[in-house]
Every structure is written in structure tokens, then in C-alpha cells.
């Protein structure tokens, strides 16, 4: 029998290299997977990882997909550092979309520079509102945030569907479950002509830098780390656990809400029943691949965005099913967690020395 023994001091270098290692392992597993499916592995990998970003338009698309992933990934990193397991960012994203979308429809055919900021703010409020329910249940009744945040995701998803089929429906839309197309002053400006890369990408980079500053330089970031690592020590120092739970959830809720409204006012431009291909869940992978570090989440967000694009290309060019995207994301998370286990533990044959 084998057993895992904790290493006294895990290698620092390996902790940061583990995402790279996991990516390589994912590629290897991908080669095997594609050969089994009867596709040329090299062609498939090229379609997955190279073709999507070989054009300017493709690079723009990369940022379009990465923007919500980075926004949520950064905020989840902070939350996970605090030991707050919000896995319902998807629901908070949808609520951001609902609130922001409602604001965009409210300002329909109006013009003014103030409209877009108000819409974004409404989106943030939607995410905050949804996350605050989780925070309230956790701090007041000690309800597990993993369960409540996940369940609220389904509530948000059904609520969005209800609204799109009802009040939000375009009156001239032949009864399709879609809202009106937002007017121009409710849309985020495009950064580069010929792409869809929009102003949200800049917000995402700024949020990532802000998250890094918060975590490494501020007292609040310090409190987040202490509460995640040793809550008793935090209480001894006078930090409030409830406050940190609220802040962690509001940060991730706000960021997810912002991501939701950015999706609507950026690439989509109207309210649809499906406004996210699971960005809120993929952002959990982003946070871990990024080593729960806000700057790491920036790069991890780009990587995961590539997996979405690659999945689409593979679908178009090689007739592979869309599920390949999910498989790739899952393998990446699986390998990174596996790498982490071996970085922190070593395997030894089981001996009699069982303490």
C-alpha cells in the first residue's frame, strides 16, 4: 500500500510551475483523447490552441471571453483566500445581467454619457444583492455558503428565463424570448476596429491590478489572508470573521454582477435566456490555475478563454462535439489539483510507522 506524507517545505518554484505542468499534462491527455476519437491529434491541438488566436479578430475574441473570467476569477481568488467558498458566481453573474439589462431597457432610446455607468452600476448591484443573501445566511444562521450560493444560481437562471419570456420580451420580436437590442449609448465602446474587444477588457485588467494591491498592500487584504489561514488568530488580533465573510462575498458578487452586465452591454447587446456559457463556474478553475493570485487570475483567465475559443473552432473545423471544451477545462483543473497534491505530499510505501 502507498501513503501520502506531507513534505516539510514544498518547493516554492514548483508551486508556481504547477499550472504550466498541468497545462502540459492536459495537452498530453488531449493527444490521447483526440487519437481515440479518430482525429489527427496535431490538427486537433492546432485547431484548439493556435487557430483561434492567429488573427487579430481572434485575439479580440480571446479578450472578449477572458474579460468575465478574469473579473470573476480575481474576486473568487480573494474569497477563497478568506476561506469563503462562493461557488455560485454564475448566479451572481446572471443577476448582474438581469439588473443591468433592466436598466439598459429602462434607458432604451435615450442618449447621454451617464447611461452606461448607471447600467454597469445596476449590474454590480444585482450581483451584490444575490451574494448578500448568501452572506446573510452564512453569518446569521451559519448556513454553508457552498450550498446556498449554488442553489441560488438555479434560482437566478430560472428568474432570467421567466423575465426574458415575459416582461423583458421584445414587443416587436415575433414572440422570440429575447429583449430589444440595446441602444448605442447602452453599449460598451469597441477598443480596436474590426474586433469585438471592448472596454470591459480594460476594466478586467484594472480589477486584476486592484485585487493584487488589495491583497498584498492593504490591511483588508491582510485580514482576508489571516482569516482564511487561521481564523482564531484573526479573532485574537481583533479581526471580525463576519466582516470578512461579507466582504469576500460582496467582492465576488459585485465582480460577477459586473461581468454579467459587461456581457450584455459588450458582445451580446440584448438580453437572452443564455447569457453565459458557465463563466461563473469556469472562473473557479481560473482562480485555482492562477494560484489564488489576482495577477495569476489574469493569465489563467486568458488560458481558459482560449479553451472556449478552441472548443468552438474544433467544433466547426473537425466536427468535434462542444463537450470537448468542458472536458479540456475539467482536465486542466484535475491535473492542477493532482500536481498540487504531489507538490505538498510525497508518496511512500506504507510502513508500520503509522502515528
Amino acid at each position, binding site marked *: 500500500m502507498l501513503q501520502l506524507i506531507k513534505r516539510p517545505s514544498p518547493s516554492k518554484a514548483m508551486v508556481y510551475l504547477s499550472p504550466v505542468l498541468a497545462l502540459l499534462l492536459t495537452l498530453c491527455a488531449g493527444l490521447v483523447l483526440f487519437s481515440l476519437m479518430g482525429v489527427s491529434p496535431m490538427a486537433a491541438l492546432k485547431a484548439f490552441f493556435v487557430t483561434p488566436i492567429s488573427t487579430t479578430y481572434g485575439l479580440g475574441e480571446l479578450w472578449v471571453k477572458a474579460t468575465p473570467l478574469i473579473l470573476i476569477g480575481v474576486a473568487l481568488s480573494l474569497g477563497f483566500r478568506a476561506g469563503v467558498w462562493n461557488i455560485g458566481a454564475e448566479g451572481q453573474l446572471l443577476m448582474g445581467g438581469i439588473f443591468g439589462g433592466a436598466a439598459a431597457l429602462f434607458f432604451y432610446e435615450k442618449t447621454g454619457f451617464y447611461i452606461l455607468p448607471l447600467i454597469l452600476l445596476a449590474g454590480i448591484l444585482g450581483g451584490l444583492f444575490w451574494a448578500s443573501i448568501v452572506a446573510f445566511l452564512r453569518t446569521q444562521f451559519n448556513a454553508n455558503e457552498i450550498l446556498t450560493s449554488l442553489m441560488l444560481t438555479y434560482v437566478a437562471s430560472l428568474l432570467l428565463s421567466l423575465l426574458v419570456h415575459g416582461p423583458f420580451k421584445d414587443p416587436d420580436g415575433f414572440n422570440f424570448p429575447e429583449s430589444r437590442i440595446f441602444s448605442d449609448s447602452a453599449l460598451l465602446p469597441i477598443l480596436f476596429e474590426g474586433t469585438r474587444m471592448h472596454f470591459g477588457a480594460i476594466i478586467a485588467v484594472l480589477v486584476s491590478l486592484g485585487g493584487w494591491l488589495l491583497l498584498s498592500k492593504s490591511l483588508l487584504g491582510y485580514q482576508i489572508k*489571516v482569516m482564511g*489561514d487561521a481564523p482564531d*488568530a484573526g479573532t485574537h488580533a481583533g479581526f471580525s470573521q463576519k466582516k470578512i465573510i461579507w466582504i469576500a462575498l460582496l467582492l465576488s458578487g459585485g465582480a460577477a454582477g459586473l461581468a454579467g452586465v459587461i456581457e450584455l452591454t459588450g458582445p451580446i447587446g440584448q438580453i437572452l435566456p443564455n447569457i453565459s456559457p458557465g463563466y461563473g463556474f469556469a472562473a473557479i478553475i481560473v482562480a485555482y490555475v492562477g494560484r489564488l493570485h489576482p495577477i495569476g487570475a489574469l493569465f489563467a483567465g486568458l488560458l481558459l478563454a482560449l479553451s472556449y475559443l478552441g472548443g468552438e473552432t474544433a467544433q466547426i473545423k473537425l466536427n468535434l462535439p462542444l463537450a470537448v471544451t468542458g472536458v479540456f477545462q475539467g482536465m486542466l483543473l484535475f491535473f492542477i489539483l493532482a500536481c498540487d497534491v504531489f507538490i505538498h505530499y510525497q508518496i511512500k510505501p506504507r510502513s508500520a510507522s503509522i502515528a
Partner: protein
Amino acid sequence: MIAPKYTNLLELHAMRKAYPGCLANDDIDLDLRAGEIHALLGENGAGKSTLVKMIYGLLKPDAGEIIFEGKAVNITSPAMARGLGIAMVFQHFSLFDSLTVTQNIALGIGQKHDLDGLSEQINAISQRYGLPLDPQRHVYSLSVGERQRIEIIRCLLQQPKLMVMDEPTSVLTPQEVEKLFVTLQRLCDEGLSILYISHKLDEIKAICHRATVLRDGKRVACVEVADESPKTMAALMMGEELKTSSKRVKPKLGPVRLQLDALNMHAPDELGMALKDISLRVHGGEIVGIAGVAGNGQDELLQAINGERLCSSAPMVQIDGQDAGQMSVSQRRVIGLSSVPEKRLGHGAVPSMSLLDNTLLTAYERLGLVGKGWIDHQKSRTVTEQIVSEHDVKATGLSAPASSLSGGNLQKYIVGRELQQQPEVLVVSQPTWGVDAGAAQNIREALKALAKKGAAVLVISQDLDELMEITDRIGAICAGSLSSFYATDTVNYEQMGLLMAGAQSGELAAVS
């Protein structure tokens, strides 16, 4: 009687065990004669626990030979050790609070048992060896001394030839220690051999025949206890003469700086202790000690004073005349309170964080390490450097995580961090628990120096010797209530033992 074919029940030859980064046991020899109480003496970290864990099959030696009853044995598991006739009483008990004494013992033995028959056996053993214990009681209602008796009886039921006891007296009152010694003497008279691990020299002097002394993982001597004095054994154990501590002179009493007024607080959970009507004054310049057996409300008291749990009314805790009972931890710290909790890793310090980051934990307000919400890393580095150099903290660097420091060094760091803030009131729990003698001496001197500067110091400790040495006034906590307080030079150990067991002041007069 047939004389056994061996003179030594247990012999160890060149036992060696290395952990990553430290050689815990370096070729240790030991011989234990049949029917003797043999002491294994050494400071914390000398390698005593590692050695006995190998004897009991909990650890596998890297090299060395164990000879039991004249035969070389390879002990691979505790079950095998028990099969050979080796039993062990651990320092930390493994008992289920919600089960009865009998049920706990039945679980520990592992075979199917008729519980009524077992109860009778327990009664028989408890009467025979002077270990009073009711088999039907639930463990949560028992004192620590009684819980230890369960562990001893559990061992004796297996009719061992050798019993290993790891620091058995660290949780007992002086009276309980005396009772334990009577029991051990009786067991020894009946032919049981005992390996007695301790660093308390007077205990070893009291009951042990011979002592093997360990220092830094090596065996330095094996001595006849009768030929040695506590002082010579201390010299062997430490390798140097201990600095004599500075004599405590009568302090100049300043105003009352810490006052507790009828402090009542319900228990934090089912296993915690409620605080009942606690009143206490500590003057500036004074060191006051609270003795007591662990789990009698010490943690709860420290948390109440520190503000980790708030009082129901503000005047219950007064710091320098200000009603602080409903102030937050931070507010109390700003007006001059500092505290050192008993648990270092995870309560006094964040294990995974560097010393630099741990300095921020409690020092950021009073030392101004944070301005407008942003951390001043440069200043915090300077402060950490001061703490490490002034208190002789041995670490691989300021970026070393707290968990990588030894217990003694971490405690020096934590105490140093609080002293660096020049507190007006310092509350410290178990200041030298598990700390080697040299570091303990440094910490005690630092506390005395702080009091001399006019601060009020409250020391909560299980170590009566320590309290007798450094405090001016002393009392005890028992079941969440405080005893009366006495000038330390007017009470003796016996009286303190009674206070720790919850005696009222009237009963105390009878002893003096």
C-alpha cells in the same frame, strides 16, 4: 519463583531516528531493569517522545535494536507492543467525552467485552492500586486527574510488564501528583517496570531509581538518582548551569491598571467553561498569577479580557480606569492591553505566514504599521528585526513561516511582539509551556522587567513553580471561578493545590 533469564527487561542499542532537518535520536542506548522506575530525562526537544514512540511501535527506527525480555524484537505497531507487554499512558488522553468510563476502556481494549464484567474488573483494579474511579460516570464530568486514571487502568487491564508514562504530572494538582506516586510505587512493588518521562527533577528525585538523561538527541548519562541532586541532574540535562533568576523584590505598586468586576460569561460551547463572578485587580508594577489545572476557564478568561468575546456590561473589564468590557480587541489594544494566548500556532500566530506578516497581526495599531488602510512593509520589517534580535529568536530569516520555528523560539517571538508595543497591561497564558529552560528564563525575566517599568502583568499558568518564582500575588481558577488571592510568599504548594482543586479560603487556613 524462577529467576528470569535476563536482568534487563528492556535494552535499547544505538537507536537512531532522523526527521527532515533534524536528528531526533542519535544512537541512544538505554537499559531498564525489571521492577525499576526508570526516568527518561531531558528538555523539550531532547528526543524523549521520539524514543518512546519507537518503543511503542508508533515510529519506525532508522537504525538500532530493541531487546525485550532478552530477545531482539522488531516492534511494528502499538498492537504488537501491547502484545509483548508494553503499555503506554500518553500525555494527551484519547477519550470520548460522551461515553462512560467503562465504554471508553472497552473501546481502547478493542476486543468484545461484557461491559458488566469489565466494570467489576475496573473496580477491582481501582481499589487495589488506589485509583478511585466510578466506572459508570461519563468522561465529560471527570477531572483531568480522573481521566488520567482511566488511561492507567486501561493499561493495567492488559497486565503489562512495562508501562511507559509520558509527562504524567503536567496536568495534575500537587495533591493528585502525590496520589499518583503512591500508585506507581505500589505497581513497582508488584514487579511492574515503569519508564517515566519527565523534565521535572524533583519528581524524578521522589520516585525514580535510575535516570537516563538525553540532550539534543544524544544520551549524555545514565545515573543512580539517589547519588544525584536536582542541581547536578539539571546540569546534565542542560549542559550548563542555569542562570539564577533575579530575585523578585517587593514592587512599588502603582494605580490599579486592570480590574475585573463580577465578570460573568456563559460558556462558548458545550465543552467550554462559563466564567462565574470573576473579580480581580492588578496594579501597575505588579505580577499576579492565576494557577489552575487546564480546562478550568483559563482560555475563556483570556478571551474575555482580550475582547475576543464581549462582556454583557462594560464595567466588567476596566483597563486604566476605562470601562472596556464592550470594547473591541483593537480598542482595548489601543488603550494599552496586550495578550499572549496559550496556543501559539493558530491563535497567537498564523502558521503559514512569515514572521514579517505575523508582526502585523497584533502590533499594527500601537506601532503604526498601517496608515489609511495600507501596510507600511518597511516599518514592519524594522519592528520584526528588533523583536528577533532583542529576544534572541532563532529563525532561518524574517520570511520564515511561523510554523517552521521551534516552540521556544516562536514563544519568544510572540512575547517579544507584545513587549515591543510597551503594553500598560499584559495578560499572558502559559508563557513558558513547552519552552526549553534557557528560553523560559529569558521570557520570565522579560515579564519581570515589564512590570518593573510600571505595567500590570497577569500570568495564567499551570506551572506552579513558575508562578511561585515570578508573581507577587497568586490565586487559582477552578471551574470558572477565581479563588481569593494571597501574597505569593505567604502560601505553600499544598495550599495552592487546594486552591486549584476549588477549596475556599476557610479550608486553606486549616492547612497553614
